[in-house]
C-alpha cells in the first residue's frame, strides 16, 4: 500500500525517446491501468517504477520519498512480467517461494508453506507445485507468475500485460478472476495492457500512454465517453468508432451540420450547438459509435441517410454491418438475424446526441452532448 508518483520523467534509449515527460499520481490502494499500443513506453514506465531502469530526468516517489536510484530490492515492489520470467530450474513451489527466501524479505519455511498454499488455492494451481516451468501451459505459467507476485506484501504490484499470451477464452476468465481478486488486494496496483476491455473493466483509473506521452488520465467512463482525442476514441470500443468529417453551417443564427456532402442540414443537440456558437471551431470531425446508428431498409424519415451494403461480418452474438456512403465506410451493429444483399440499398440514422466532436486539425476533443443518465449506454 503506497502512494506512487512519477514526476516529469524522461528516458531515452540511445537516440529514441522512450518516455517524454510523463507524470502520474497513483493513489494508495488504487488499481491503476496504464494503457497504450505497443511501443508506447508502458513497460519502460513500469521498469522505472520498479527500479530496473533509471530515468534520465524526473523523479519516482514512493510514499513521498524520492527513490530514483534506489535498488529494486530495496523498493519493495512486486512484478509480474509479460513473459512470466519463471526460474526454469526451480519447481513451481520454489518459484513462488523465491521472494520469501531472499535476504531482504526472508521468512521461515513454515510461513512460506502456509502462504503458498493460500495463494495457489486462490489461483487454482495447488496441484502443480512439483512441476517445472517447462511442463506448464501458458495459462498455468501465468498463474504461477501471479502467485509469485502475490505472496509478497509490497508497496505496489506491477503487472506487465500478464494476460497477453493467453487464448481469448482463458483471457476472459482470468480477467474476471483478477477483478475478483483485485477487491481483496488492498495494495496499490499498476497494470499495463493494450487490451481496452481489460483496461475498462479492471481499472479504477486509466492512464493512456502513446509515443511516450500521457494523452489522458481518467476513470473508464471518462475515457470512453470523453476521449481526449481521436486516437483514444479509436482505441476503445469494438467495432472501432467512426470518425467522419462534417461541415458546420449556419442557418438562421443557429449551427447545424452537414455530412457526406449532402444538402441536408442536421440539427445539433442544444448544448453542443451553444458550445460551437461560443467558440467557432475551424474544422470538425464527428465520432460516432456503431451502436449509435440506427439501420433501416427503407427511408423512414428525412433523418435517414442512404448508403449501400458493403459487408456483413458476424462477430459472435452480433454482426458488424459496414455501409458505404460515397466511398466512406461506416461501421454499424446489427443483430445476427439481419441479412441483406451486398450493394443493396440501406438507410442509417445517426444519433447525434451521442456523437463526440473533435477538432479535425489537432484531433483533440471539443465537446459532446452531456446525458443526464449515462448508464443508459451500452458498451
Amino acid at each position, binding site marked *: 500500500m503506497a502512494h506512487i508518483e512519477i514526476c516529469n520523467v524522461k528516458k531515452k534509449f540511445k537516440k529514441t525517446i522512450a518516455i517524454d515527460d510523463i507524470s502520474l499520481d497513483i493513489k494508495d490502494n488504487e488499481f491503476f491501468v496504464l494503457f497504450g499500443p505497443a511501443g508506447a513506453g508502458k513497460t519502460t514506465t513500469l*521498469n522505472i517504477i*520498479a*527500479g*530496473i531502469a533509471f530515468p534520465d530526468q524526473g523523479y519516482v516517489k514512493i510514499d513521498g520519498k524520492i527513490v530514483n536510484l534506489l*535498488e*529494486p*530490492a530495496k523498493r519493495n*515492489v*512486486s*512484478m509480474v*512480467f509479460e*513473459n512470466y*520470467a*519463471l*526460474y*526454469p*530450474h526451480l519447481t513451481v513451489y520454489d518459484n513462488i517461494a*523465491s*521472494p520469501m527466501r*531472499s*535476504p*531482504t*524479505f526472508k521468512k521461515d519455511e513454515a510461513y512460506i508453506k502456509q502462504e503458498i498454499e493460500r495463494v495457489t488455492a486462490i489461483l487454482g494451481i495447488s496441484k502443480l507445485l512439483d512441476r517445472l516451468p517447462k511442463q506448464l501451459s501458458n495459462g498455468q505459467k501465468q498463474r504461477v507468475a501471479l502467485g*509469485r507476485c502475490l505472496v*509478497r506484501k509490497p508497496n505496489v504490484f506491477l503487472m506487465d500485460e500478464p494476460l497477453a499470451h493467453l487464448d481469448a477464452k482463458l483471457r476472459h476468465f482470468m480477467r474476471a478472476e483478477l477483478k475478483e481478486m483485485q477487491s481483496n488486494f488492498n495494495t496499490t496496483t499498476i497494470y499495463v495492457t493494450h487490451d481496452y476491455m481489460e483496461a475498462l473493466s479492471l481499472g479504477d483509473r486509466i492512464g493512456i500512454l502513446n509515443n511516450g506521452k500521457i494523452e489522458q488520465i481518467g476513470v473508464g467512463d471518462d475515457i470512453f465517453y470523453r476521449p481526449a482525442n481521436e486516437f483514444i476514441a479509436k482505441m476503445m470500443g469494438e467495432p472501432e468508432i467512426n470518425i467522419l468529417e462534417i461541415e458546420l453551417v449556419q442557418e438562421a443564427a443557429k449551427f447545424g451540420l452537414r455530412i457526406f456532402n449532402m444538402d441536408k442540414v442536421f440539427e445539433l443537440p442544444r448544448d453542443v450547438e451553444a458550445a460551437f456558437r461560443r467558440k467557432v471551431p475551424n474544422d470538425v470531425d464527428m465520432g460516432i459509435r456503431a451502436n449509435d446508428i440506427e439501420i433501416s431498409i427503407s427511408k423512414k424519415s428525412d433523418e435517414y441517410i442512404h448508403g449501400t451494403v458493403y459487408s456483413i461480418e458476424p462477430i459472435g452474438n452480433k454482426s458488424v454491418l459496414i455501409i458505404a456512403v460515397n466511398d466512406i465506410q461506416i461501421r454499424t451493429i446489427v443483430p445476427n438475424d439481419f441479412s441483406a444483399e451486398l450493394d443493396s440499398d440501406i438507410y442509417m440514422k445517426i444519433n447525434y446526441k451521442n456523437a463526440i466532436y473533435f477538432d479535425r486539425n489537432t484531433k483533440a476533443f471539443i465537446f459532446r452532448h452531456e446525458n443526464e443518465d449515462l448508464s443508459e449506454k451500452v458498451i
Partner: protein
Amino acid sequence: MKAQYSRGVLGVSRSLLLAIYSLFALFPLIWMIIISFKSDAEMFTTTFIFHPTLSNYYSVLVGTDYLKRFLDNLIVSVGAVIVSVIVGVPGAYALARYNFKGRESLAFTILSFKFAPEILVILPLFMIYQKLHLYDTYLGLIWVYQLITLPLLIWVLRGYFEDISLEIEQAAQLEGYGWFHVFQKILLPLIMPGLVSAGLLAFIFAWNSFTFSLLLSGFKIQTVTVASLRYVASDTVHYGYMAVAAAIATLPEIILALLIQKHLVRGLSFGAVKG
C-alpha cells in the same frame, strides 16, 4: 522384392563401410596397448600371440620421470581451465548482456585466438618469457594455454547466457536478491551444463597441447606430449616404452571421453548448431 533385395545389399555394404572405418579408427589404439605389453624379446617375433608383461610399464613409470611429466601436464591443464573459467564466465556474461562499442570485435578477437598459428605467438613470447622469468614455469604455460582454453569457454558460455532472458535476472532483483545471489542461485545453475561441456573440452585441448610446452618450457616442466617424443628420438628405439608413453598419455582422456561423452559432443557441437 527388388526393394527388399537392394535394401539388403545396401544394409550390408553400409555395415561393411562402418566396420572398415571403425577398424581404421580404433585398431591403432588397440595395437598401442598390445605393444605396450610386449617384452623386448618378443617384440620382433610375435604379432598377436605373446606373453604379456608389465616390464615396460615398470621401466617407464618407475625408471624415468615420465610420471612427473604426467603430473606437470595435469597441473598446467587444470590450471589453465580454472583460469579460463574465472576469466571466461564474467567475460561471456559481459559479451552477452552489455551492448558496448566494439563488442563484436572483442568477441571475434577472442575467437580468433583459437585460429592463430601457435608459432606466431611463441616466437615473441619466447623472449618475453625469458625477460619476465616465466620461461619453464607453470604460470607461464597456464597463461599461454589461455589461447586454447579461453575462446572455447567464452564462445559456449556466451550462448548459454544469451539464452537466459534478462527478465529472470530482473525478477530475482525485485525479489530482494543482490547480484551475487542472482549469479549463484540463478545464473550458475542455468549455465552449468555448458560450463561442464566446455570445461571438459578445454581440458582435453590443453592436455593435448604440444607446441607451447615444447618451446616455452624445457627442463623443469614438460608435458607428456613433449616427453613422449624422447622415446622416438633416442638411438635405440624402445618400442615397448614408446607404446607405454603413448598409453599413459592417452589414458585419462579415454576415460574422460567414456564417462562424459554426452557433454563432449554437446560442447563441440553446441556453438555450431546454435550459431
